[in-house]
């Protein structure tokens, strides 16, 4: 069970606004997060991963406290080991497809399996600049899965994929999520595209 109760001040053109989230996510659940631009969807994912610190709040995973502002507890991103798929992919320009996965894990069998799932097995020596947008996006997802996280955070993970590739990848990921017992939070601008995959949703809106 993941329990999140946070408050974060956001800067906006129209002044300051607050991102407030108080929600629990069951183990193994897949939740889509949506809301207007600038509402703080990406910020919420980064707070959970430990990349941003909120003004107030508590995050607990199975009774382990990741964050408690009042008692100044804040585990580093390295200790939280959350799988994170960034909106801009954040691929490393100096590494090939295989090196990305080898940077994350030493498990060669797991790497081979991930490459098959992502249909990148013939592109292992390619660097990101020689991959298409869809291939880069799949590599970003595979890299996040390589560490076998318990929690996977995905920021607009399917936006660069065509309809067919999206359907195939979502089917593959659904099996993989269940196998790994993953809890998944997916930020999307198009909630309908994830109807078959997600079993819950969180709509984010800000407060002034």
């Amino acid at each position, binding site marked *: 069970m993941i329990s999140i109760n946070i408050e974060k001040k956001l800067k906006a053109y129209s002044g300051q606004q607050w991102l407030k989230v108080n929600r629990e996510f069951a183990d193994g659940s897949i939740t889509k997060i949506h809301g207007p631009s600038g509402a703080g969807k990406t910020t919420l994912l980064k707070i959970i991963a430990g990349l941003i610190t909120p003004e107030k709040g508590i995050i607990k995973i199975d009774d382990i406290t990741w964050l408690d502002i009042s008692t100044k507890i804040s585990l580093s991103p*390295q200790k939280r080991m959350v799988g994170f798929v960034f909106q801009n992919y954040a691929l490393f*320009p100096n590494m090939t497809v295989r090196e990305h996965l080898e*940077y994350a894990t030493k498990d060669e069998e797991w790497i081979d399996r991930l490459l098959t799932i992502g249909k990148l097995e013939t592109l292992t020596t390619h660097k990101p600049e020689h991959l298409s947008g869809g291939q880069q996006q799949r590599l970003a997802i595979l890299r996040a899965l390589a560490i076998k996280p318990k929690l996977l955070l995905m920021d607009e993970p399917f936006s660069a994929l065509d309809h067919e590739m999206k359907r195939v990848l979502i089917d593959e990921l659904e099996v993989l999520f269940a196998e790994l017992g993953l809890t998944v939070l997916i930020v999307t601008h198009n909630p309908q595209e994830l109807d078959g995959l997600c079993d819950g949703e969180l709509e984010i809106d800000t407060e002034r």
Partner: protein
Amino acid sequence: MDLTPIWLTLRLASITTILLLLICLPLARWLSKGRSFFKIIIEAIITMPLVLPPSVLGFYLLLAFSPQHGLGKWLYETFDLQFVFSFQGLVLASVIYSMPFMMGPIKSALQQLPSSLAQASYTLGKSERQTFLRVLLPNIKPSLFTAMVLTFAHTLGEFGVVLMIGGNIPGITRVASIAVYDSVENMDYSAANTYSLILFFITFVLVIGVFIFNKTQVKSPLE
């Protein structure tokens, strides 16, 4: 024709470049992360040699490290270290004087990398050090090379600071730029011309090297 000043200059430039690389890599990473008033002060101090007359810097270094008083006296009496009129003094002065040439390109390149690169590495469980060595550093290679060549070339041409703290001791502090000045003073235009031509040739090759390296680099996908 005495080539010792040329070898001394090349030795000084090599040592200065290596030392500055070791100093500036962690310092540039620290400076590139966020801004604070303290960091602004540090950056200003590092940048000062760019705008300060070299003789002013040399004068203060001479005062600070003079074995007669203060820091220089303490270093001399405690560690038997003398920076005035010695080769190590030239190295110290060159490190301070050339620091902005190493720091500028490295810091600027690190700031231009998307912050999500380091963040992605952290979420994979990698430490700050691993992230710096495996992700950030390999992606600023052209800037790193430019910084090293600029520092090396700039150290080759130092005159004011080197003369103030090192003087003109043959085989110890008499580097090529001082040898040119000294030869002209002694009306030995042939020696001055030879030293100048060698310095010109080395610097030209280095600058050409930087242009060729940067031209052949594949365009970064981050651009």
